């Protein structure tokens, strides 16, 4: 068998699905233990079984061996011989990790995972003694156990024997789909064959009993094959036929009289029928049905005859899917983005040409706009996938971190069906991994401290995802001790990240964790030493157009919140005038726009201004000034846009104009230019001009933080 590469790729893709399903099932089992749904156990079994089967086809030795041992243990659980308990489940889940690694190794041609041997021993120990002895060790050489054994054609071998076979099928044999001619052909491959159909017991038509074995065959085979090879041909026929095999030495070749055997029932007086001679072994499409309805053919036999089958179709609609290369989808996404821009440009051109009053044109244009928006949504939904696979991977991270730190931790996930752009999903793995490790390593207390604080010994890590106001919000929350703010401050001061004695709000101290260079290498634990700090996490999330923020309550735990755009390609934005420039502000962060009265604005110190709104004082940030644009001298009153960032901090951005609200296609600046503080990306407007997209989060952070100057962080 030469399975082609496409099938190999498809196998590994299937493995991903199967491993995910296994992980999920094992997770459920670990929760429910002996109350586990049997179907869950079956599903896990089937998954590993399928992996084994596929791995066998591609001769992936280690994978087959490991999957086999794994499967054996599961089989014991499935049959109820092994209790679904925490200890074996822990081993099974470790086994699942190894299986994942093995699949990855097989895919890339890497080495077997180092922990394979250990886990293999543990699994072996679980199944030891009770393992099903009937289960043959898996032979990964392609093989066929063949009902109609297919030996190599017999070469001319001198010591041939004459083997006589009397084959007398019961009607059940036909019902099982056996074709006597096919069986006899199997004999033919073993040597020289002469077959006679014995029809002397076939009565006259009126006396025909369809349930009786009316026809039988006598075959003479001149062969070098052993008797059991002959018998093997009829192996699967089993008790569906009476079979007599007798061997005579080759010397007796001329003695053609077949010995009568005792097993043949007393034959009725032979009907005078001519011996038809050697049976025609050609394709016969009539003989099986000649036996008519049999016990196997009763229509009322089971619940699965054609009637219920039709119902089953309605109950379980088969969802058809295709796999498409993501490049193609990406191309489509980009082209739709261009379409949106083109539509905006056309719209602008119509306005400029004074055609906006024409009702037909306006409605056609609106039609195109709607259509473009719908297409965009559809394309986005192709890219959107449940975040579940990433969450499932975190399960393993939790267990590993828990083992490494000696702290008991349980991962609780919610909202894993939340759909996120595929690219985002893939790039979330590393940040989430880091945050989970961080939560266990630094967030959770040791067991005795937890006990002292009256908390359960097992720490909880909650991982959740949800859609909220056009964004995807992912939270990693631990129920640990919360951030040790004096200690964080101390470290930050030691590293020169913050001036000694600076006035810092608790939230400011928490945010110090995200600063590059904070990563406390002084704390050596099994998990540190990876050289990754939370600053890297923040950079990753930011590069996805997202935000990460932190809240912490001493004694109760810490929550990291990641907010991501639903899509990386398009942004719902507000066009604003800043100085002489047109910029785009993401709509998602805007709370309100206002033209404040002078009484609402309060001055603080030399230049700082605050505006009173919604019962609080919010700092005003002049965007023109913040970006260093040339100020425009005009008397028109500026507009304030109240924005809120993910942490809940607010600021009022001062701009000259608010123009319009529209979808813009995000063009990354960093690919072509470089990172600009306060700017997240750029876009092309309808008239072809380029507009920068404001990063309100960064602006707000700097508007509200008095300890860190804008420039200082911009350089960081």
């Amino acid at each position: 068998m030469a399975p082609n590469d496409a099938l190999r790729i498809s196998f590994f893709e299937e493995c991903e699905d199967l491993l995910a399903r296994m992980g999920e099932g094992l997770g459920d089992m670990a929760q429910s233990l002996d109350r586990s749904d049997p179907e869950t156990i079956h599903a896990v079994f089937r998954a590993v079984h399928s992996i084994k089967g596929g791995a066998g086809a591609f001769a992936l030795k280690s994978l087959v061996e490991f999957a086999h041992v794994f499967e054996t243990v599961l089989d014991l659980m499935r049959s109820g011989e092994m209790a679904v308990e925490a200890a074996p489940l822990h081993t099974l889940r470790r086994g699942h990790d190894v299986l994942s690694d093995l699949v990855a190794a097989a895919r890339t041609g890497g080495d077997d995972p180092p922990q394979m041997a250990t886990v293999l021993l543990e699994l072996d120990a679980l199944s030891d003694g009770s393992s099903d002895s009937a289960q043959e060790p898996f032979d990964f050489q392609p093989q066929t156990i063949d009902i109609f054994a297919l030996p190599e054609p017999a070469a001319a071998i001198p010591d041939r024997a004459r083997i006589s076979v009397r084959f007398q099928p019961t009607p059940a044999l036909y019902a099982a789909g056996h074709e006597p001619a096919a069986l006899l052909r199997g004999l033919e491959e073993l040597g020289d064959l002469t077959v006679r159909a014995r029809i002397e017991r076939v009565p006259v038509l009126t006396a025909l009993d369809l349930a009786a074995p009316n026809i039988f065959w006598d075959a003479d085979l001149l062969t070098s094959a052993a008797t059991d090879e002959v018998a093997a041909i009829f192996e699967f026929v089993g008790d569906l036929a009476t079979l007599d095999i007798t061997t005579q030495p080759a010397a007796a070749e001329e003695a053609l009289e077949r010995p009568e055997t005792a097993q043949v029932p007393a034959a009725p007086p032979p009907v005078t029928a001519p011996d038809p001679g050697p049976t025609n072994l050609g394709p016969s499409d009539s003989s099986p049905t000649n036996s008519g309805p049999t016990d196997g053919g009763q229509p009322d036999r089971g619940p699965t005859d054609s009637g219920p089958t039709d119902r089953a179709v309605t109950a379980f609609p088969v969802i058809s899917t295709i796999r498409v290369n993501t490049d193609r989808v990406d191309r489509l996404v980009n082209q739709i983005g261009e379409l949106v821009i083109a539509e905006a440009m056309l719209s602008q051109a119509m306005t400029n040409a004074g055609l906006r009053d024409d009702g037909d044109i306006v409605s056609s244009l609106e039609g195109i706009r709607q259509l473009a928006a719908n297409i965009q949504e559809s394309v986005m939904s192709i890219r959107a996938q449940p975040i579940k696979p990433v969450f499932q991977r975190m399960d393993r991270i939790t267990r590993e971190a828990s083992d490494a730190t000696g702290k008991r931790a349980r991962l609780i996930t919610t909202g894993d069906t939340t759909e996120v752009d595929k690219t985002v999903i893939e790039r979330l793995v590393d940040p989430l991994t880091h945050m989970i490790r961080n939560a266990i390593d630094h967030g959770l207390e040791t067991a005795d401290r937890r006990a002292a604080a009256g908390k359960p010994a097992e720490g909880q890590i909650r991982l959740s995802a949800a859609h909220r106001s056009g964004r995807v919000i992912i939270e990693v929350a631990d129920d640990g001790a919360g951030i040790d703010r004096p200690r964080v401050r101390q470290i930050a001061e030691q590293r020169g990240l913050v001036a000694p004695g600076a006035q810092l709000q608790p939230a400011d101290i928490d945010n110090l964790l995200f600063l590059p260079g904070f990563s406390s290498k002084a704390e050596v634990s099994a998990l540190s030493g990876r050289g990754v700090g939370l600053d890297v996490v923040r950079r990753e999330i930011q590069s996805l157009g997202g935000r990460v923020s932190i809240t912490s309550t001493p004694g109760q735990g810490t929550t990291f919140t990641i907010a991501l755009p639903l899509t990386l390609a398009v942004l719902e934005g507000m066009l604003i005038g800043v100085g002489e420039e047109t910029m785009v502000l993401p709509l998602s962060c805007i709370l309100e726009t206002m033209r404040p009265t002078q009484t609402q604005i309060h001055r603080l110190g030399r230049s700082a201004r605050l505006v009173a709104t919604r019962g609080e004082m919010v700092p005003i940030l002049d965007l023109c000034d913040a970006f260093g644009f040339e100020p425009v001298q005009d008397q028109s009153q500026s507009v304030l846009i109240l924005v809120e960032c993910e942490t809940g901090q607010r600021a009022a951005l001062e701009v000259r104009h608010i123009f319009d609200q529209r979808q813009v296609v995000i063009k990354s600046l960093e690919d072509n230019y470089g990172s600009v503080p306060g700017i997240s990306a750029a876009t092309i407007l309808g008239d072809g001009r380029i507009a920068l997209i404001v990063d309100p989060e960064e602006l707000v952070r700097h508007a509200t933080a008095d300890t860190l100057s804008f420039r200082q962080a911009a350089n960081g």
Partner: protein
Amino acid sequence: MTIRILAIDDSPTMRGLVAAALAPEGFDLHLAEDGLDGLARLQQADPHLVITDINMPRLDGFGVIDGVRANPAYTSVPILVLTTESGNDLKDRARRAGATGWIVKPFDDAQLVRTINRVLGL
């Protein structure tokens, strides 16, 4: 006459492997994703031969055998079981249910084709 074969396996890889082995032989191959899907496609595929996996969701291979045999039109269509299982008890069970043959995965393309031809009396 084109031989129609209904192959039932929940693993896309296995379906692919079966298709790769059988398509070049000119068989008219119909694929189903599990036992229920297989039975649902039975009438439409109207197979001369059924190949089925054993371990499948929703309805396993034994269920397939029962279901096919319960349909008066297919009481004698040959059913080959294609599975990684090789336990004798399972084989016996399949035989009693009405299976025609048992092939252990991984299979050899040529052998699979030969077995099919053999069972079909071709």
